[in-house]
């Protein structure tokens, strides 16, 4: 087997098991099936092309998710999404602790549909950090590597994303109840 074949086989072994996860993440970012499909194809093409620069033994999942996310950010949809300002800066002081209230109990019972709508409406900076943590179950270190941001920013952004999600779900439940 020549070097190129070995490289392709190695890439396939690492990348294909992540296909479904990459597609799911791409669709969440783009909100559109066609764009998500293009984004995934572009990601695999770029990753295959750059596979020789991937350092064996390092985190392949973070590496290929970073390629997907950067490709998205440079797409028309991504550029538009990235201009949506966050309400606050990432390095603001720690958030106050949430306490259980009748409202929080109610939102714990939110349907999957309401939850999905609320995730979809989050600014992309919150949506991506939340999905990488809760769905991809990446460590803070892996998320930092994927998004090329410091770990402290991952923690504060994640905290704000969770708060924003709870707030959005609450609002939807109240709207549905009235």
């Amino acid at each position, binding site marked *: 087997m020549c070097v190129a074949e070995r490289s392709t086989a190695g890439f396939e072994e690492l990348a294909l098991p992540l296909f479904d996860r990459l597609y799911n993440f791409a669709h969440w970012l783009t909100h559109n099936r066609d764009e998500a*499909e293009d984004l995934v194809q572009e990601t695999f*093409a770029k990753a295959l092309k750059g596979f020789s620069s991937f350092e064996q033994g390092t985190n392949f999942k973070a590496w290929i998710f970073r390629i997907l996310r950067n490709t998205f950010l440079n797409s028309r949809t991504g550029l538009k999404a990235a201009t949506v300002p966050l309400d606050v800066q990432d390095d603001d002081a720690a958030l106050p602790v949430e306490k259980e209230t009748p409202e929080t109990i109610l939102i714990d019972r939110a349907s999957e549909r309401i939850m999905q709508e609320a995730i979809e409406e989050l600014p992309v900076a919150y949506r991506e950090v939340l999905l990488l943590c*809760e769905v991809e179950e990446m460590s803070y270190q892996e998320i930092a590597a994927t998004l090329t941001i410091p770990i402290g920013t991952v923690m504060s952004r994640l905290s704000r994303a969770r708060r924003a999600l709870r707030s959005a779900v609450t609002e939807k439940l109240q709207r549905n109840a009235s």
Partner: protein
Amino acid sequence: MTHEPWIAQLDAYLDGELESGAMQELDRHLRECAACAAESLRRLQWKRNVHAAGQRYVADPVLRERVRKSIARGDAHAIWWRWPAFAAVAAVAMVLAGFGIVQYKTRVVRENQIVSELADLHVSTLASATPVDVVSTDRHTVKPWFEGKIPFSFNLPELQGSPFELVGGRVSYLEQSPGAELIFRIRKHLVSVFIFQDRAVQAGLPVNEVRDARSFHLESWKQGELRYFVIGDTGAEDLRALKDLLAKAK
């Protein structure tokens, strides 16, 4: 008993991100404190709900197969997946061409890809209603804004007495690498300056080159470990003047 210091650690605890000492301490507390244990359970349930809701989209099996076949073929250009006929023609052309020609073409294609990508980024900036994320004419505001957002730092020039005005900046990406995009105004033209780590871009573009990029002029040079690209529809001499200012910045 105050629960807040414990509750403040719950998310990191459930994410498995607390250090082992703090993890054990919180474990012990949760066994003894019903209120914190209930809150922990509530947050765990919430995490499960988000996890389930987040697994929403399923790819078309046809797409998966197409990607798998493309990997097996070693295709590194997404466009080939969409136009197989183009791939076939290109493959034949490459076989017919000599090794030297292929190498030369590869370099030219790569250069053109980078130039095209930069032109796209500049056009997006021009078309955007909010072209910059940090809006300031003050270099002492714009430069610190990038700290922690990109993996390097750079210097901005003093523009007083020059025809250039700093409009602001934003984070940009080229070849999956984060970098800085700075927007300058000269007369009525907007010029984008892109700065990336040279090793990340590995552009292979000749140093000190001015070239045309879809009706824009583009100037590229390497400075230390950084690669600069200046692109705009103003004259090449304006780009050179801006390059000189950037090169001398301290």
